[in-house]
């Protein structure tokens, strides 16, 4: 079981190369952020697979990674708004 879980984690890590390609190509800032979020969700999956293969306390790492990805998206939206601090819904 351990080797199966580790192989899946490696495959998942390799697939994130596709996301890196999208970060590189863009073209919009939002496209790059989408790819970064893909790496975030992929990272959560990888850490969880490693947690099951080695040590369950790594679940906390996955938890923090998931929360940080959400914070990154909020920071991105704020930085992209007209005055760099605002609510993206303001007119």
């Amino acid at each position: 079981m351990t080797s199966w879980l580790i192989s899946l984690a490696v495959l998942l890590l390799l697939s994130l190369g596709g996301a890196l390609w999208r970060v590189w190509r863009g073209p919009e800032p939002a496209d790059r952020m989408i790819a970064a979020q893909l790496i975030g969700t992929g990272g959560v999956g990888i850490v969880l697979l490693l947690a099951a293969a080695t040590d369950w306390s790594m679940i906390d790492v996955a938890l923090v990674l998931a929360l940080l990805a959400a914070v990154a998206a909020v920071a991105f939206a704020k930085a992209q708004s007209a005055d760099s601090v605002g609510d993206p819904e303001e007119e």
Partner: protein
Amino acid sequence: MKKHAASARRVIFFLVLWFVLSEGEALLVGAAAVPAASWLSLRLLPATRPIHLLPLLAMTPNFLWRSLLGGLDVGRRALDPRMPINPGWIRLPVDLPDGGRVALGGELSLMPGTLAAGTDRGRLLVHVLDKDQDHARMIRIEERRLGSVSG
């Protein structure tokens, strides 16, 4: 009265969260962390209407099923060599308070073919993967379900 019930639910949420995170240990730290987190959370986002647990649980199986369909739908379109997507926008008025609108938008973003992008003069902006499908009827149903969860 509604406000108190809503605030109490927030505190209970943080209590359960602490219990799960700490695996039932470090209760002394929790005794400080839970009130502090509750205070900060209620200050940043005052509770107005309580969340009802039963309607929330009742809509969960349907939500999970439809988000599975959402994943299948988008995966099928991505892997099909012809890549059948026909994207477009729809706008429709929603009759939910602000928090409910965000929840509806988040839910729609996980359902097949729809993606919310906030509101424009009170109308929800929804991006759809196939503009020939009838999404408006489904959105109405989800809106009604969510309306019963909070209030």
